């Protein structure tokens, strides 16, 4: 057990702190800016500065416009820690840089890499992900959007759903069925689709929060060159599921939980009932402490998973549980905040007496979306039981 990072990393941290102090004025305001892409020149200029200093697109090779560094998880952790500490945007994230770029690096043709990686990491091209469909949710391999060969093109018809940022995106990377006769998983290809193509219609999909926006994307005879397939035809399922060796910071989710818990404690100090702070109410207090115990467990679990990655050890079943436990915990933290406020907890949409701009209700509802999205809690339990514990699959 050794929780120090070592001198080399502390030196990196000092350099990063100096950089952030020196260039603070050039950063776009707000730490979340840039997630999902942006057209704001200030955001794009900040991103170029970060890449130039090796603080963004770190592991993307130089020939494609990145900093060309070796993957290093501790560097990733320090970057996240220091940008958060400084309250500055860590640059452009989202599905383009985080999902498409590593996929292209592993499976893309030279031409695809040259054309897309640079503009994507610089934030000039914004991407959305076209995986889910109305009939392909938990059973994602059931995608029905069809791409039929016609000359050198594919002609795409069908529908995608839950497409975050589709309304902003220049491009979509998505899964379409190109081999109708093939077995379910073998008939899918991974394609890149310009969102300006004739026949694409984007419709907003509101959520229960009234704020979070998703989209539905409809395809009617959309033509895409066959050269836009990434990897081989029919291998889209495998490509989408490749475990990509990019830096994943296993501490980030627990860091968010800790920050949320700290906000909850502040709320409970100041929110009163009959003149007494919520923090002094024995029942609310007990719930708070229960949640704190869970958040601590997730925090140290994150350190354990980080260590497993650093040592290139498989964490086994322990590596499969974070999503299930973390999303639920975020939901419970918001639920307690709402109860601590009582009737005030339901105020929303800028109402008189509203607290924290309705953030707690938003988190309560949005975290329920996270419990469902990206593999429902029930699918997570199947994965834990079957892959982690070796229990037999249910007959289908």
């Amino acid at each position, binding site marked *: 057990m050794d929780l120090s990072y070592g001198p080399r990393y502390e030196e990196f941290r000092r350099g990063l702190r100096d950089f952030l102090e020196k260039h603070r004025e050039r950063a776009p305001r707000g730490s979340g800016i840039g997630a999902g892409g942006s057209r704001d020149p200030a955001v794009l200029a900040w991103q170029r500065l970060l890449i130039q200093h090796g603080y963004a697109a770190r592991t993307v090779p130089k020939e494609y416009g990145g900093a060309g560094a070796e993957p290093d998880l501790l560097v990733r952790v320090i970057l996240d820690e220091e940008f958060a500490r400084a309250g500055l945007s860590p640059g452009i994230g989202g599905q383009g840089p985080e999902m498409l770029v590593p996929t292209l690096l592993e499976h893309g043709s030279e031409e695809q890499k040259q054309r897309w990686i640079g503009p994507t990491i610089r934030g000039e091209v914004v991407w959305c992900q076209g995986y889910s469909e109305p009939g392909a949710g938990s059973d994602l391999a059931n995608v029905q959007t069809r791409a039929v060969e016609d000359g050198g093109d594919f002609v795409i018809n069908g529908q995608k759903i839950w497409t975050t940022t589709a309304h902003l995106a220049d491009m979509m990377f998505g899964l379409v069925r190109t081999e109708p006769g093939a077995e379910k998983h073998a008939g899918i290809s991974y394609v890149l689709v310009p969102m300006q193509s004739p026949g694409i219609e984007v419709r907003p999909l509101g959520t229960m929060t009234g704020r979070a926006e998703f989209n539905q994307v409809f395809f009617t005879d959309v033509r895409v060159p066959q050269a836009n397939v990434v990897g081989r035809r029919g291998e889209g399922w495998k490509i989408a599921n490749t475990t990509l060796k990019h830096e994943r910071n296993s501490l980030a989710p627990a860091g968010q939980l800790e920050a949320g818990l700290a906000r909850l404690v502040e709320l409970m100090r100041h929110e009163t009932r009959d003149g007494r702070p919520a923090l002094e109410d024995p029942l609310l207090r007990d719930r708070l*402490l229960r949640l704190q115990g869970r958040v601590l*467990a997730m925090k140290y679990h994150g350190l354990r998973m980080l260590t497993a990655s650093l040592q290139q050890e498989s964490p086994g079943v322990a590596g499969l549980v974070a999503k299930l436990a973390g999303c639920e915990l975020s939901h419970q933290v918001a639920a307690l905040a709402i109860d601590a406020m009582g009737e005030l907890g339901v105020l929303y949409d800028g109402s008189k007496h509203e607290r924290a701009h309705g953030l707690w209700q938003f988190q309560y509802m949005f975290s329920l979306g996270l419990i469902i999205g990206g593999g429902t809690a029930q699918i997570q*339990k199947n994965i834990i039981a079957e892959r982690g*514990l070796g*229990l037999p699959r249910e007959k289908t």
Partner: protein
Amino acid sequence: MDFGLSEEQRLLEQTLRRYLASELPIARVREIAATAAGHDPKLWSGLAELGVAGVLVPEAHGGGGLRLLDAAVAMQSLAHAAAPTPFLGSSVMAAVALAGAGTPAQQREWLPRIASGDGVLGVAASELAARRDGAGVREQGGRLEGRALFAIESGAAAAFLVALDADRLALVPRGAPGLEVAPLATIDRTRRVAELVLSRAEPADWVRGPRAAVRALDAGRVALAADLFGACERALAMAVDYAKQRQQFGRPIGSFQAVKHLCAEMAAELEPARSLVWYAAFAFDERPGEASLLAAHAKAHLAEIATAIVRTATEVHGGIGFTDEHDLHLWFKRVGLDRQLLGAPDVLREEAAKLQGW
């Protein structure tokens, strides 16, 4: 950055599990549990030879001179085997109290005996967490008066450390005039607790030091968290094995989502908890400012999830899990006792709140 067990700690775990698997089959656990003292000197001296009994005793006194994380690894393996041993009281709490605050003479007298397994010290510290049934011990003119409930390792103890307050523990030999050891029968027959009734009992000695008793209590709580973890690890493994083997409706019950999701929920609760136990043990030695808070949180959280896990594991077993013949209830009961000892979860959470100024 290395958040995990060292090579030596992994080896300790493997060695101990192998030893217990061969020397302590469940049939033997049941035999020991059925004896009056609930203690097997041969088993304990065997474990002492492996370095278990003296893991926290300084090397100068014949122990391993190791850290609480090493002790937690050992405790977890002992719980996994449902071992009836005086490890918690003697090797963890008493060793911490004496190594930390004992006089040189006390250390010379007791620490080598703890390490060799020849002498077992019991510990009465429940009243530091919460007084039940009017219990409590006070000092009057150098004598002890009152009652201490749930003294740990009462079956094997040659003497007891009785906590009077945060800074003082009285050392009272078994058989001292004015000390009555009244055994208490609990649900868990693999361990022994007693009520100490003290009427003008004269302590043989005192262990004094700032927070001497609190340190012993913190260490005991972390050890109990590790014990709860080890018990759950075993209960979950038994449930998963059973779900793979047991056939109903022509297929293994583990293929039904209703059963498989119960198993997944247990694993999802247990895995993050392991890291909390490790960190609490690490903090005890390396981050003293956090030690009491983490000890309280670790024990409270482990007790909550363990209670759910042993109950769920029993449900996965169905009717057979409710029988005495099946062994699962040994861990169900171990968790039941661990949960209440040295502070039930609600007591611990309130302590954790106060420690943070809430």
